[in-house]
């Protein structure tokens, strides 16, 4: 699965680059608009170490942000699954927070926490958590009637048991959502770095944009894509292992 993720990404990226080069040579555009293959190669050779370290820094924040957002989404999802006033209040609060554009909230975050690690983490988690929350709410609000009925009529149903039943019965969905949210966590971290941090690949992309250097941006995109493909592949593999473990236990 992991090698397949990587070569699928390579196919997509190379197709994208091929389209760019086709446009460049078809319309006779200069290297300023679309860099030449030689320019791209030279840039890759010049910045791959520096950008590689930046991507690693971004990924580390993204992973922590993803863990935080999964935890947060599970908490809110579990609390919000109930059809009580409190459950509805939690849902409304979660939806409202998401309605604010992150670029509007960012200045407040930077005033409170500065432009270091914590701000990047918080913004990444904020961008990542909502789609997870929606899935968790969907899963947790849907009763697994055939199993839950037995516990309810025997009076043994507790909320912990309800959550466990619903989670285990929807394990595949949950692992797919978590694996998919890796992309959002990475995107969230890059947005945070682009807006205001002073580290990470988002920050390097901002500098490249200031310098109108598309070849640097393409190199950054390549490194982000390949890193994400590996990370997602690993998450999927872990999801499958957990799934197998659950099946064996049953």
């Amino acid at each position, binding site marked *: 699965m992991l090698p397949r993720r990587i070569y699928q990404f390579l196919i997509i990226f190379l197709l994208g680059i091929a389209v760019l080069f086709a446009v460049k040579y078809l319309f006779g555009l*200069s*290297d*300023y*608009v679309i*860099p030449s293959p030689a320019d791209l190669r030279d840039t890759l050779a010049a910045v791959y170490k520096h950008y590689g370290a930046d991507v690693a820094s971004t990924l580390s924040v993204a992973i922590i942000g993803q863990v935080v957002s999964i935890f947060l989404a599970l908490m809110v999802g579990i609390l919000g699954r109930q059809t009580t006033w409190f459950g509805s209040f939690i849902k409304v609060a979660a939806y409202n927070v998401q309605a604010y554009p992150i670029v509007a909230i960012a200045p407040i975050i930077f005033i409170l926490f500065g432009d270091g690690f914590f701000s990047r983490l918080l913004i990444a988690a904020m961008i990542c958590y909502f789609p997870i929350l929606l899935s968790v709410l969907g899963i947790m609000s849907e009763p697994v009637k055939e199993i839950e009925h037995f516990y309810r009529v025997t009076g043994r149903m507790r909320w912990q048991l309800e959550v466990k039943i619903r989670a285990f019965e929807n394990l595949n969905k949950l692992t797919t959502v978590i694996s998919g949210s890796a992309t959002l966590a990475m995107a969230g971290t890059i947005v945070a770095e682009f807006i205001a941090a002073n580290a990470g690949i988002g*920050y390097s992309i901002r*500098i490249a944009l*200031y*310098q*109108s250097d598309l070849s640097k941006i393409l190199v950054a995109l390549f490194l982000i894509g390949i890193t994400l493909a590996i990370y997602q592949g690993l998450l999927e593999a872990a999801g499958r292992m957990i799934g197998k473990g659950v099946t064996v236990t049953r």
Partner: protein
Amino acid sequence: MKKIWTGFLFVILLTAAQFLPAGLLAAEGGKEQLTYRLKWLFNVSVMGDLYAGEMGFFEGANLDVTVKEGGPERDAIRELELGYADFGVASADQVIRALSKGSPVVVLAQLFQVNPLQWIYRPDRVEITQVKDLKAKTVGVTFGGNDETIMRTLLASQGLSEGDVRIYSVRYDYTPFYRRKADLWPVYVNSQGPIISWKLKRAGERVAFFDPSAHGVKFVANSVVTSVRMAREHPDTVKRFMQALLQGWEAAFKPENSKAALEVLSKYDRDTPRPILEKQLAMTRKLVKPDDSVDIGTFDREAWQQTERIMLEQQQIKAPVGVDKVLIQF
């Protein structure tokens, strides 16, 4: 079924129209339709461009010009090459970088004689009369931005290294300066300068500006550009456009037209209070027309050469581009 196909065709035609190159469509009344992409958002730095459009200077030259806002993600030179714009505004470093990568661009006028990019500071806290006074100060710098290049050049000109100052990475808001985490902060003196000065004045603080050009570093700012093809194939259009544009700029900064200029400006920049706009206008006048004998649009060739030299020294370009050759006064 026929209706569906008609609707489908309409959508396709409408979509295709979006991709037509700029300037291809002829406006009503036989006026030539042109697109002019600015470097930044509508504010006092594009006063003359707005004035030329609003007060009928383009119309008088038989031109129908769409003036489009710029922004951080916009690059007028790229748009010229892609055919999305006919004219644009770009900074000198953008022009030089584009030339170094083979972009067919020419410069038609230099709008700012003095670069508006300066550093704001609190004179009660630090005293900056010469470059050496920057030593041991915390200086805000946007990594990758013009201000980084200018600051590096300033420091090098006095034998100072980066280790002699504390560099503070600048982001888009001024909180670190307000909170005194940085002693000097880069600002556009004509647009942001009056706003920040006003805010700090209300808090009982005085501000001053550190101008790199007063210390020998002349880094050219906004200029009007077009493609080599446009200049070669449509010299008459270029001439009419430039005449109308520069007449607009000259008129906008005539003291007797101040009221009209402010009306135009407040129409486009609604969020800035009128007293601030007045200050911005006065400040911009000093930068685009520092001397009555200098026509707006005049090239400071020495400054262009210096800008190229600085970029070469800082390895932002690999080889000289001979920027002097693309400065064409129409």
